[in-house]
């Protein structure tokens, strides 16, 4: 089972100064910064997934790349741009979620294939259109016509895509995108893609589905899947069902959730092999909009806010080196919660995190280097490092599951 990490320009700056919370004035974004596969002792994924929508922008927003970065990605190719070590694979896709609202995809097969080829991806997913709904009992005749149309459109584009790949003597491994709204419709999509010649198929639009529904679809697909066909799950982790997925022919998946939970989840910010912990919130006085408003409005004294913020950091660091009792750390954190007018209190969860000191038990390069800083929820540099740590934990968990992965032969 292979894990791909979707790129969203997530890097950390190695010259960031944690004590003063500032970047080097000379830092060049992306080029001086490091990806997860560069800061950890081994890459925490088997491959990266790069979306055309993230690079070039799409209907929703301008993408995450500046024009010069985009030019450099095209010029250097994906391996050099991402400075990928040997063994990390590359997969391109369209990022269909970005244009889900449109009637038809705003990209052509030609544009997509050009993007894959110019950047030199190992493999690329055909253009697809997400069906935003699930109805296991609907047939093509009874289902919402737009759903049926989107599935057929995705299949037409897949046929066009594999033809273009074959005609252009491309070295890209074509990956067919399958859409559906039910086990039957997904299975039919897979069946058709196989007859077009696809040996690798990506299942799209399953992110909102409950795990049992995904399993039901996979079981139906398994009935038509050829032994050599490899399946990819787009945007899904569900580590607890991983073995089941593998048994049903899933060879790879991609997901950002382990990474994003480090700063998006309310509680599960720091992952460890056994359990998850809340990260300790010490927001920057400058960066917290509520606090800023209250300071501007004269409700909170900026001096007190800064003093308490620093005191929290100082005590956390001293706690890490064994020079400060836990109660005194929690006391500072509680004062800061009051100043930042936090809507709820996390103190009990903090106690659990700080008592367990999970970062001390972790052997990843980031926890070794940064100690307690890694569980402080504050600013993008700490939060992304914690996200990278989570990726390494997920990757280890994944590789531990003795997966009876089905071996397919690669086309081309």
């Amino acid at each position, binding site marked *: 089972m292979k894990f791909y990490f979707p790129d969203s320009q997530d890097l950390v700056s190695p*010259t960031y100064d944690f004590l*003063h*919370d*500032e970047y*080097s*004035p*000379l*830092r*060049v*974004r992306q*080029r*001086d910064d490091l990806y997860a596969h560069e800061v950890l002792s081994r890459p925490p994924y088997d491959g990266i997934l790069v979306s055309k929508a993230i690079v070039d922008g799409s209907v929703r927003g301008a993408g995450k790349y*500046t*024009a*010069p*970065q985009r*030019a*450099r990605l095209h*010029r*250097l190719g994906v391996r050099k741009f991402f400075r990928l070590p040997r063994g990390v694979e590359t997969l391109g896709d369209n990022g269909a979620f970005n244009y889900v609202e449109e009637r038809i995809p705003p990209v052509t097969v030609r544009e997509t294939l050009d993007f894959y080829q110019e950047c030199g991806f190992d493999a690329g997913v055909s253009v697809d259109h997400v069906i935003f709904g699930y109805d296991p009992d609907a047939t093509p005749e009874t289902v919402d016509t737009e759903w049926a149309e989107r599935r057929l459109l995705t299949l037409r584009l897949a046929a066009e895509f594999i033809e273009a790949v074959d005609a252009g003597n491309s070295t890209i491994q074509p990956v067919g995108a399958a859409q559906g709204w039910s086990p039957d419709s997904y299975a039919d999509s897979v069946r058709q893609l196989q007859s077009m010649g696809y040996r690798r198929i990506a299942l799209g639009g399953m992110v909102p589905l409950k795990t049992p529904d995904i399993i039901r679809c996979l079981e139906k697909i398994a009935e038509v899947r050829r032994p050599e066909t490899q399946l990819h799950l787009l945007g899904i982790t569900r580590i607890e069902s991983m073995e089941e997925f593998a048994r049903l022919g899933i060879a790879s998946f991609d997901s950002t959730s382990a990474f994003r939970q480090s700063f998006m989840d309310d509680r599960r910010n720091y992952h460890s092999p056994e359990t998850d912990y809340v990260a300790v919130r010490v927001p*920057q*006085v*400058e960066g917290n909009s509520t606090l*800023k408003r209250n*300071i*501007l*409005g*004269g409700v909170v*004294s*900026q001096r007190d806010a*800064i003093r308490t913020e620093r005191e929290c950091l100082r005590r956390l660091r001293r706690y890490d080196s064994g020079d400060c009792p836990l109660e005194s750390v929690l006391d500072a954190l509680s004062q800061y919660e009051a100043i930042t007018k936090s809507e709820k209190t996390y103190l009990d969860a903090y106690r659990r995190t700080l008592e367990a000191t999970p970062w001390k038990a972790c052997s990843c390069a980031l926890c070794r280097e940064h100690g307690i800083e890694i569980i402080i929820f504050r600013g993008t540099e700490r939060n992304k490092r914690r996200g990278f740590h989570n990726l390494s934990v997920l990757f280890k968990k994944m590789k531990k599951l003795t997966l009876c992965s089905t071996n397919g032969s690669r086309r081309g």
Partner: protein
Amino acid sequence: MADKYTLCLPALRIRQGKHYIYCFGVDGKRIHDFTTVSRVRREDDHLQGYQRPEVLSHINAIRRYLESDGAMLPNAVVLAFDERVKFKVSKTATLVDYTTVGELIIPIDEALPENDKPAWLVDGQQRSAAIRDAELAEFPIAAVGFIADGQDHQRSQFILVNNTKPLPKGLIHELLPDTAGHLPARYARRQLPTRIMARLNNEVTTQSDIDSPFRGLISTPTVPDGYIKDNSVLKMIENSLYEGALYQYRDPRDGSGDEEAMLLHLKIFWGLVKATFPEAWSLPPRKSRLSHGVGIQALGYVMDHLTDGIPARELPTLDLGKPLARLKSVCAWTSGVWEFGNGESRRWNGLQNTPSDVRLLSNHLLRSIR
């Protein structure tokens, strides 16, 4: 430490018309003991106070400077005193009649709430906050005080004091290359690019850059006859330094760069540009889109495309003249029409120095050399 005492500071009283101002030195660490930093706050619909909250990034920049070796803060902070602060004349006779030597007597009561302190900070909020937060035992600074007739007087002083014009960019770019010591972040970043530009322009009296195609052409305060805008060249250099061919000469750990290699790289490529388009190169932007911001930046992208990752020494082996020669037929630097394909065309001077036009022209040139 008593919580009520008097602070006596040697001071000069200077007469200005019907006002007096007081110049004195004070330990920056103690300013907050008797000074309040008023902030804009509404009470019963009346504006109280007049200062912005501290800008932490700005304060941190100052603080880091203060903690560096040999820091100096020559500009004085400005305080508005109320009538509780007195001046005691100690020496009546001075050489000039508008200056009197004496001491300022400032009553300090630490129990007083913030709003009732005898002095208000009119200018120097960020500086004094930086001193307060710096890891220093003391840091005496120069201060100027005046005794104000109420808050509206203080407010007008605040506006007057803070209404300064920033230095012109061109002047800063010219000063940067030869500036040593600590610089604010945004200038620290520009020091290397401005130094490269200065040498391309051959403003430095060395013989080593006599072969620069830009020699004497970049307009700066001291080279007023130059016709290529300094900002165009600076943008091209910075862009290549961060995203393009010049990045290879940079050390990501400390941001330094191999200047000689960068210069060689730029001279070789732009020398070929000059040789390919001699006429367009010799005309000012009004008459040529090549010496214009749009042309310089677009060709910068061409340079990055053709030479990224190739060390300067090896550039002569690339035969760069060939792709540049291919551009001749698709360029309308000084007359005619740009044909961008897809039916899009522009008069030769219809291109402006906007991001979208730079992109349009860059893509056009890149398509032609691919």
